[in-house]
C-alpha cells in the first residue's frame, strides 16, 4: 500500500497486537514508525491521510523503549579496559551481542586504568548510532581514576589519581584521559580536593558526573550535586553506609539540598533490593565484565584478574566483588521479582531513567511521538523476543 507522500516517501510500519509502555503505563495500542522515529498516527491519518505500508504482528508482546546500559565494562571475553589496538572492534562485538538482551544504547565503561590505556582506547571509541551492527554508543563512562583509595573496590590502587592543588582540574582530567570528546559520564569521588571544579568542568562539556567509589560525607556530595553531578554509581557499593549523623552519598536520596528541577539518579546492579518511592530515580546497570556471556573461569577487568564463581565476580584470590556477569534483561527481571515493583517501573529503570540521566530523553528511553524507534519486545515474563533500532529489526529470538 502506498502511503501518502506529502510529508515523506519513507515506508510506515505499524506494530500491532502489542502493549506499549507510554506515560508510565502499559497500554493496548499500536506503535507506528517512520524514518526510524515514532510516528503520531492520528496526525498521519488526518493531516496526510496516510496509512501503514507494513504491519508487524507482535503476538501480544510488550513493547518497551530499548534498554540503555550506562555501566558495562565488557562481555563475551572483551574487556573495554585493555590497551588493545582493536578496542573499537571489541566494543562493536559487545554492541552486537547485547542486542539480544534488549539493549539498544550503552556507555562502554572503563575502570581505573593507567593513562596509556585511556590514551589508546578512547580515540577508538566514537559516539555513534546503533543499527544491525549493534547497540548505539552514547559515549564512554569513565569510572575512575579520580576515586577514593578507601573505597577502591576492584580498582587497582596504584593507578588512582587525585587532583593536584593549584593546577586547573581540567589539566588533570586531560592528563589522565587524553580527551573528553566521546565521554558521556565520569565517576569520581567528590571528597577529593579539586573535585568540585572538575565536576563543573565536566558538566560544562556535557559530560554527566556520577559520584562513587567514595568516602564523601553528605555535604560534600551535596556540593557536587550543586556543581552539576547527577548520578550515583552503584548505590551502596563502594561508599560509606548510611549513618544517622552523616548519611554520606546515600543521603542524597533524601537530601533537601538538591536544587529545584534537578534530579539525582542512582545506579543499581539489581540484586535483592526493595522498592520505594526513590525507585523513580533508579537506573539499572549491569556493570557487566568480560566474563558476561561466558562460562565460569578467569578473566580480566582492566589491570585486575577476575575469577567467576557461580554468579559472583571476585578479584582473584579475594572476596572483593568486581562488577557482574548479569545481562540487562536479567537485571530487569530480577529487579521486578526482588522488589515487587510493577512491570512499568522495572522497564523504565532500564530505559527512561538512564536516558533522563544522560540528558537524551527527548529522543531515547520512551515511546513518545518523535522519539527514536529503539524498541525491546518482551513476553510477559520480561524475556526479550526481539530488538529494534531506529525501527529496524536488529535481533529476534530464534532467528
Amino acid at each position, binding site marked *: 500500500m502506498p502511503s501518502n507522500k506529502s510529508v515523506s516517501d519513507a515506508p510506515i510500519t505499524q506494530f500491532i497486537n502489542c502493549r506499549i509502555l507510554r506515560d508510565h503505563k502499559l497500554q493496548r495500542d499500536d506503535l507506528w514508525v517512520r524514518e526510524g522515529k515514532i510516528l503520531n*498516527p492520528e496526525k498521519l491519518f488526518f493531516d496526510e491521510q496516510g496509512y501503514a505500508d507494513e504491519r508487524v504482528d507482535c503476538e501480544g508482546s510488550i513493547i518497551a523503549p530499548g534498554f540503555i546500559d550506562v555501566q558495562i565494562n565488557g562481555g563475551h571475553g572483551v574487556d573495554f579496559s585493555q590497551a588493545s589496538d582493536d578496542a573499537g572492534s571489541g566494543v562493536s562485538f559487545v554492541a552486537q551481542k547485547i542486542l539480544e538482551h534488549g539493549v539498544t544504547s550503552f556507555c562502554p565503561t572503563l575502570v581505573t586504568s593507567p593513562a596509556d590505556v585511556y590514551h589508546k582506547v578512547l580515540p577508538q571509541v566514537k559516539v555513534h548510532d546503533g543499527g544491525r551492527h549493534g547497540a548505539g554508543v552514547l559515549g564512554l563512562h569513565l569510572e575512575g581514576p579520580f576515586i577514593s583509595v578507601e573505597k577502591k573496590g576492584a580498582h587497582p590502587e596504584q593507578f588512582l589519581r587525585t587532583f593536584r592543588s593549584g593546577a586547573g582540574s581540567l589539566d588533570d582530567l586531560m592528563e589522565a584521559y587524553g580527551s573528553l570528546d566521546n565521554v558521556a559520564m565520569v565517576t569520581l569521588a567528590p571528597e577529593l580536593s579539586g573535585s568540585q571544579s572538575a565536576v563543573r568542568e565536566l558538566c560544562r562539556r556535557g559530560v554527566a558526573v556520577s559520584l562513587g567509589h567514595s568516602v564523601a560525607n553528605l555535604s560534600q556530595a551535596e556540593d557536587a550535586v550543586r556543581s552539576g553531578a547527577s548520578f550515583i554509581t552503584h548505590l551502596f557499593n563502594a561508599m560509606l553506609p548510611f549513618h544517622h549523623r552523616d548519611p554520606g552519598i546515600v543521603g542524597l536520596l533524601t537530601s533537601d539540598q538538591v536544587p529545584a528541577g534537578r534530579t539525582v539518579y542512582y545506579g543499581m546492579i539489581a540484586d535483592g533490593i526493595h522498592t520505594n518511592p526513590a525507585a523513580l530515580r533508579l537506573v539499572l546497570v549491569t556493570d557487566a565484565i568480560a566474563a558476561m556471556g561466558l562460562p565460569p573461569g578467569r578473566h580480566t577487568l582492566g589491570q585486575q584478574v577476575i575469577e567467576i564463581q557461580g554468579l559472583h565476580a571476585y578479584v582473584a584470590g579475594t572476596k572483593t566483588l568486581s562488577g557482574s556477569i548479569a545481562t540487562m534483561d536479567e537485571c530487569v527481571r530480577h529487579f521486578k521479582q526482588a522488589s515487587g515493583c510493577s512491570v512499568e517501573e522495572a522497564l523504565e529503570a532500564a530505559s527512561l531513567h538512564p536516558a533522563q540521566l544522560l540528558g537524551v530523553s527527548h529522543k531515547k528511553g520512551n515511546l513518545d511521538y518523535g522519539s527514536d524507534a529503539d524498541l525491546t519486545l518482551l513476553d510477559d515474563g520480561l524475556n526479550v523476543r526481539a530488538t529494534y533500532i531506529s525501527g529496524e529489526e536488529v535481533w529476534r529470538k530464534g532467528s
Partner: protein
Amino acid sequence: MKLIILDDYDQASEWAAKYIRNKILLFHPGPDRYFTMGLPTGSTPLGCYKKLIEFYKNGEISFQYVKTFNMDEYVGLPRDHPESYHSFMWNNFFKHIDIKAENTHILDGNAADLQAECQAFEDKITAAGGIELFVGGIGPDGHIAFNEPGSSLVSRTRVKTLAKDTIIANARFFDGDLSKVPTMALTVGVGTVMDAKEVMILITGAHKAFALYKAIEEGVNHMWTVSAFQQHPQTVFVCDEDATLELRVKTVKYFKGMMYVHNKLVETHPLDAKKN
C-alpha cells in the same frame, strides 16, 4: 418509525451495531459503490462503536468501502485537543478499523472560512451520493447534532452557538471550567440528516426519557429538534428501558410486542447478503 426497546445500554449498543453491520453487508459495498454513513460522537454511541470494532476484528465487516460524515465539531478547538471530535473519532473508532482517512469527513472547526467549510461539507455529501444511514444521538433537551432547541427543522450545515445547557453539560470534559468550553460548533442541519435514506437515533438512560417522549409522542416541534424525524420515512429509535420511563405504557407495549419482528433485522449474516 421503529422503536427498538432493549433491556439496557449494552444490549441497545449491540443491537445498533448489528443493525449497522447488516446494513453494510446488505449494501455490498465495493470500489464503485461506497456505503455512506453519518456518525455521532458522545458517550451514547461508544458501546455501539466498540461492537462495530469487534465485528471488524472478527472479520465480519470491513470499512474499506465505507465513507463517513460526522455530525459536528467544535469551533476553535485544536484538532488534536483530547475533546475534539476528531480525537474522539480517531481514538474510539477510526484507529481500530480499516477505514481510509480519505473516506472520513469531519467538519474543520478551525477553517478560515467557516461558512465555506459548511457548504463544502454539504457538497461532499452530495458528491458521495447522499447518506445511506445517518446514526445520531440526542441531548436531554432533544437536540440532534448541535441543532439546539429552536433550530430550524429544515436547517443545513452551519455555524451554531451552543445553548447554555449544552455548555454546562460539556464542562465536565474541560476540567469543569465553563470558560474553557467552546461556545460555537459546526453542525449538520436537521434538514441534512432528514435527507439521509435512513436515520437511526440512539437514546439511552433515564435522563433522556423526557426527550424520547417529546420525540415520538408529541408533535413535531423545533424546540425538540429530534421530533422532526417523525416526518422521515425511515427512522429507527434504539433505546434502553430507562429511556422509556416517560412513555405511555401503551406505546412501550406496542413496540415491545414487535421486537420479534424487528430482531430479524439484526440476525447474523443476513441471507441475501450471502447470496450475492
